[in-house]
């Protein structure tokens, strides 16, 4: 009984942040083109990875998808609700179905609230359980689900370690029974031994509840491990998208290639033997992105047409999408 429709569809999503000058009049003098037209879908129960360097717009995609930023244009459909033109009432329904796990487990929990208050907030806001006693039962159940003792409900966030706090964040995200969760770098602030714990927890919960994830990360090794398909972003655009093994083994885009070659391998012999592509310079400013292909100033194989013409987003192999003139 699978639904043929993908759970999440993003179509030509654009998010520009205005750059203003002046304190009172705030004239608009430009725009940070954080996301400049991305399209993808995520099937039910699937995990889509979104990778790229910092400043490439991956977090903005996640936040705009949940309506935390209003989109400049384009559409985001989550389970047949359009996030971009939803009114307050519909937005509430969407927020119940789509949740987020944040990167920094220290900043994303209110330090003055107990675990009970934090985890039960979605239940109160969405009026899912109106009885105090039932609600605290549900909180205990959620804590056990994420591997925390239910005795900890009256503790405050500072009493927990980073990994435990991230588990509280996961419990909060699960409280409203969502179908879709945006995981925005959920493990990058954690120690290696704890990262594996949280990743395994996310996988278990996915199996249990049929969750759909958008997994935003810059750790390409972890993304290969956890995601079904992976999208690579560069300066506000997706440059390549494919099934994980296809992407990691038969990558087409020169940026994907450079990114993968830069990932350290915990195997000295292999690490020394392989060819590294060191990209020169930094990611250009999204206020004034390069013309043509945005990667051309750093691209080792860029040609004349790359400077002038924007490459088209095309399907190079079944399910393998890429935007590059040279492949």
């Amino acid at each position: 009984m699978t639904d043929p429709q993908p759970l999440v569809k993003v179509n030509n999503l654009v998010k520009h942040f205005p750059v203003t000058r002046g304190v009172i009049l705030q004239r608009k003098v430009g725009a940070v083109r954080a996301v400049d037209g991305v399209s993808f879908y995520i099937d039910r129960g699937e995990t889509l990875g979104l990778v790229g360097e910092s400043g490439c717009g991956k977090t903005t995609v996640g936040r705009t998808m949940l309506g935390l930023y209003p989109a400049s244009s384009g559409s985001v459909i989550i389970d047949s609700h359009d996030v971009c033109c939803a009114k307050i009432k519909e937005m509430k329904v969407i927020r119940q179905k789509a949740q987020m796990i944040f990167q920094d487990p220290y900043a994303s929990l209110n330090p003055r609230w107990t675990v009970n208050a934090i985890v039960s907030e979605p239940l109160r806001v969405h009026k899912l359980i109106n009885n105090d006693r039932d609600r605290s039962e549900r909180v205990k159940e959620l804590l056990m689900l994420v591997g925390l003792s239910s005795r900890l409900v009256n503790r405050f966030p500072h009493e927990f370690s980073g990994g435990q706090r991230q588990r509280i964040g996961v419990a909060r995200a699960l409280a409203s029974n969502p179908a879709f969760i945006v995981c925005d770098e959920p493990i990058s602030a954690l120690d290696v031994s704890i990262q594996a714990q949280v990743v395994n927890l996310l996988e278990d919960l996915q199996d249990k509840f049929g969750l759909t994830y958008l997994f935003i990360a810059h750790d390409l090794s972890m993304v290969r491990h956890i995601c079904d398909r992976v999208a690579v972003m560069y300066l506000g655009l997706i440059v390549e998208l494919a099934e994980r093994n296809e992407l990691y083994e038969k990558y087409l885009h020169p940026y994907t290639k450079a990114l993968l070659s830069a990932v350290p391998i915990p195997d000295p012999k292999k690490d020394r033997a392989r060819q590294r592509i060191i990209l020169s310079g930094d990611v250009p400013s999204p206020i004034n992105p390069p013309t043509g292909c945005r990667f051309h100033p750093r691209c080792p194989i860029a040609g004349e047409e790359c400077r002038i013409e924007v490459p088209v987003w095309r399907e190079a192999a079944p399910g393998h999408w890429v935007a590059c003139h040279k492949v």
Partner: protein
Amino acid sequence: MSHLLEVSDLRTRFHTAEGTVFAVNGISLHLDQGETIAIVGESGCGKSVSMLSILRLIPIPPGEIVSGTARYRDHDLFQYTENEMEDIRGKEISMIFQDPMTSLNPVLTIGRQLTESLRAHLPMDKKAAEDRAVELLEKVGLSDPRQRLSDYPHQFSGGMRQRVMIAMALSCSPSLLVADEPTTALDVTIQAQITELVAQLRDQYHMAIIWITHDLGVVAGLAERVIVMYAGLIVEEAAVDELYEDPRHPYTLALLAALPRVDRRRDRRLKSIPGAPPNLLVEPHGCPFAPRCEYLIEHCKDDNPSLTQVGGAHTIACWIDIKTGKPR
């Protein structure tokens, strides 16, 4: 020939309101001229504190170096006066830190900060120091170095700031560079640039490097020898190839098993290490890894194993032979 740096039985504690933090609990290590070693461990394992102790950068109080010696070129750094120590820091031993934003002064220009250590350690006038600063910035791959001298840290990107930090650390051609997670805050592409740069400069200046990191991936291609720390103790030490091919301590083994590989298809769930990192407010008793160890035997809880050789230069602190699962 004696070693460039030889640390023995270093113990550092912090006396805080919550109690005594047992940060470093007796570590010994050595390093030769031009050698690169890596110290690997999770946050709170004492890897940074041990290096800061050696450089005497621990605030005392609340810190206290309870015991130990740190012999650098046959002189104990702990016996030096503060003035003598200032001559060593920056000139003989330099350090680069994790966060290039907080370790640069935001209200001083890059030029001012770069020339500061040059003029403090070397007999240079302002002009000569500036020329040297330009040369250094060029070496670390900054374009238009002369113009950039008058820029402030916020005008640089993260990778560029780390390059400036490296230029600063190298300014007096130190013999030993201590790099404390220099690439942790950076993207993989920039991380690759920086490690490449450090390796290049190392060969050029014949510097010794201590690279502190939590990432077993980064050091694989860089270090010659790896030291794994846990709860303020060294638990394993081996040549880099041997450590990755044949890890002998349960903690090292578990760390490697917890890492997904970018070059391999997924074949299993990640093996996580149960439990949480140790509480350093309690004086260690027995093996600190025992509560999380899958090879645990009764003996581990009472008696902390000391480092013993398991072949060549490979040492571990463990009662168990993980190959057989039986006590050694």
